[in-house]
């Protein structure tokens, strides 16, 4: 009975539910007790009565949601364990963004690990992924197709820095998601030797300040709003992806638009974004990393949550493992 995890850990209309512990992991609707893997909006939603997550994830939720972050916030850091109704819950780094955790659930000697979102590539803005051996591994599959092999992030960042000097007459407008990708890109161009101030769309400032307070070195950041657009030729400006196609971007004349995402691997997707400079960097595992992780955790059973599960499930079965697609509501397939 225990050894069929589906009897006690299963998807419901509100999200993935652990019955003996009476808690939800990354619920899509407000619940009494939520365990949250990381701060992205499709995983961490406001309005839960009690929330358990890493300190940094709780902080991020407060930056984003303020009062609505949750009734009772309880920090559970990497390496710590807590018992909820007889179920042991622990956290291990997922390497996805600052504070991102895999949730470890132990019940009666059976161990399930819920990965949330994760990556294996090195990222100095967050703790690196830790392999946790388990019986059941629940993995994301955002990039669950063999065509998705991300580029080396440092090399991609160096290309961007090179373009900043080669096309010095054009403002480089880089579209990034506000949590994680934004700070990682800044940190990457800093490591590539870019020392000038970087300009931020207003909505990106808050989380950058938070990352900086956690010791992530982002160098000098300036608000875009204070600048005369013509003074920004040859400068790097970061904004949320939606702002590129929006009226906001018209203030700059002839900007070079760049976009950093794992989706940029595929030309049709990059063209859809209408981006001039696609950068193949992602905070999600690419195909080789998914396979590597599935083999590292040595689990007999693999469940696949959001993303492109058909190819990954096919692969899992050729690896001789038991696979299952978890139809979970509320996750953004496109999200990064």
């Amino acid at each position: 009975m225990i050894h069929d995890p589906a009897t006690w850990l299963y998807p419901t209309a509100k999200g993935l539910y652990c019955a003996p512990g009476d808690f939800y992991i990354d619920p899509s609707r407000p619940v009494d007790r939520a365990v949250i893997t990381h701060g992205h909006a499709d995983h961490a939603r406001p309005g839960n009565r009690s929330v358990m997550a890493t300190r940094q994830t709780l902080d991020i939720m407060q930056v984003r949601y303020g009062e609505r972050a949750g009734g009772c916030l309880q920090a559970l850091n990497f390496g710590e364990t807590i018992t909820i109704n007889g179920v042991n819950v622990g956290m291990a780094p997922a390497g996805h963004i600052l504070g991102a955790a895999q949730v470890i659930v132990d019940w009666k000697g059976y161990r399930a690990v819920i990965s949330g979102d994760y990556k294996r590539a090195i990222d100095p803005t967050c703790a690196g992924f830790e392999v946790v051996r388990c019986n059941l591994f629940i993995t994301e599959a955002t990039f669950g197709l063999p065509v998705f092999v991300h580029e080396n992030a440092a090399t991609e960042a160096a290309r961007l820095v090179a373009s900043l000097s080669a096309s010095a007459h054009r403002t480089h407008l880089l579209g990034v998601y506000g949590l994680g990708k934004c700070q990682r890109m800044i940190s990457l161009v800093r490591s590539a030797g870019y020392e000038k101030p970087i300009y931020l769309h207003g909505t990106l400032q808050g989380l950058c300040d938070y990352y900086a307070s956690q010791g992530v070195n982002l160098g000098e950041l300036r608000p875009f709003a204070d600048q005369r657009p013509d003074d920004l030729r040859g400068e790097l400006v970061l904004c949320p992806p939606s702002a590129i196609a929006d009226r906001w971007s018209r203030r700059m004349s002839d900007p070079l638009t760049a976009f950093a995402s794992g989706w940029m691997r595929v030309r049709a997707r990059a063209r859809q974004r209408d981006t001039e400079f696609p950068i193949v960097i992602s905070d999600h595992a690419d195909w080789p990393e998914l396979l590597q992780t599935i083999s590292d955790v040595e689990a007999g059973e693999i469940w696949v949550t959001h993303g492109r599960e058909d190819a990954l499930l096919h692969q899992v079965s050729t690896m001789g493992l038991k696979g299952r697609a978890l139809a979970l509501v509320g996750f953004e397939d496109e999200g990064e």
Partner: protein
Amino acid sequence: MQVFAELMNRLAFTSSRNAKLDLMQDYFRTTPDPDRGIALAVLTDGLGLRLPFRRLVTQLMEPHVDPVLYKLSRDYVGDTAETVSLLWPARKGEGPVPTLPEIHRTLKSLKRTDAGPVLSGWLDTLDANGRWALLKLVTGGLRIGVSARLAKTAIAQAFNHNVADVEEVWHGLSLPYENLFAWLEGRADKPDPGDTPVFRPVMLAHPLEGDDLAKLEPRDWVAEWKWDGIRVQLAGNGRELRLYSRTGDDISRSFPDISDGFQGFSGVADGELLVMRDDDIAPFSDLQQRLNRKNVSTAMMKNFPAHIRFYDLLFDRSEDIRASNLPTRRKRLEALLSAGKFTRASLSEVIGFESFDELTILRDGAREANIEGLMLKHIASAYLAGRPRGYWFKWKRDALTADCVLMYAQRGSGKRSSFYSDYTFGAWRTGENGQNELVPVGKAYSGFTDDELKRLDRFVRDNTVERFGPVRAVTQELVFEVAFDAVQPSSRHKSGIAMRFPRIHRIRWDKPANEADRLDTLLTFIAR
């Protein structure tokens, strides 16, 4: 190959013309011979390689990838060469990356049976973008939005030359263009094309505007009809004959009937390519049937016979007469054509007139669909490359207009990518249910000011009723006064018509949509 692959990738994602030129100029300045010459050939479509790609791909990919995963990937990516470039197992660093000259040399003499191993050896040395560029290169389908002329403009500008100078020597050159680069860089004299029938830059006209006419003295000007065909240049040395487009593309292969009709022709002449049956010039849509075809059937040549109406002569046999005045060149042209008994040739008629008023009446009276208006040429003008001011004017007859209703809008590209700047508009007709409905009749993306564009963009965003990808359907209430040169019958369009050169003449914010024109009205414009 790595640098070239990066160039291909950047070009594929760059939509602005200037940004493309910047990228290419940078490449040609910093890349040595003979690599850049091969790259230039690729960009001007002169490598002529076509490997049997589909068969090769299955052979190459089979050992590496599970068929289920291959199919899922191919479906997602949507392009076979790209799928292969992404699925190819990364072994980057296996041996030295091949250079462009090496690839070119090897492929030229490659036996089909060796193609697989050679290609897979190269793929092993490259990263994903490099593999994509290589596969596109060997299959000949680059599609990166660079025309031959744009590439020529880039090399000219990279070394501070005029593109006309490059065009003038272009067709006498061959791979890898080392003498061209040596000249551009000032290390050698201009390449001498000898008697090869090369392209000579054409002379272009300015539109006659506002009070231009009042400033002209009628006696100094020669008038001719402006025909609605395509501008061509015929160049021959008595043995070899070439037909060039206005931009210097060699289009001889599409017109074997022209080659037959001008055997023995020696000189360089300027004229209008038309389809002509008996003595009637066919509408432009007939000529379109003949354009951009690699293979031309006998039936095609019989049904759409090509013809050149000449108006100028640049070279009389091997003698350059471009510096002579117009009447002199005209006499030489007449003599050359009558001496050769060329079929498929006629002379552009010179229209006699005393005053511009008289000419205006003639212009407005010409309602044949294939006359666009008049050309005015200064009698003392030499044949000058480019678009010099004050010598040649095109005096188009007034455009036709119709009131149409905005139906769909799409985001533009480049600088306009954040604006809904491409508009599809429709005219009214009675639908099957007896109700009035709009049917799309044309698409325009010009004719408005920047301020108007902002207001239109706001209108589109505020009045969107449905989205289809990048396209938005809007409430059918905004009227455009659309100007166009002609209306042609078209079986490809739901409305049964196609507008020629539609542009927005005025935005009628004031006009109720139900007062816009009906399709029936537009049909009356056909062949007017």
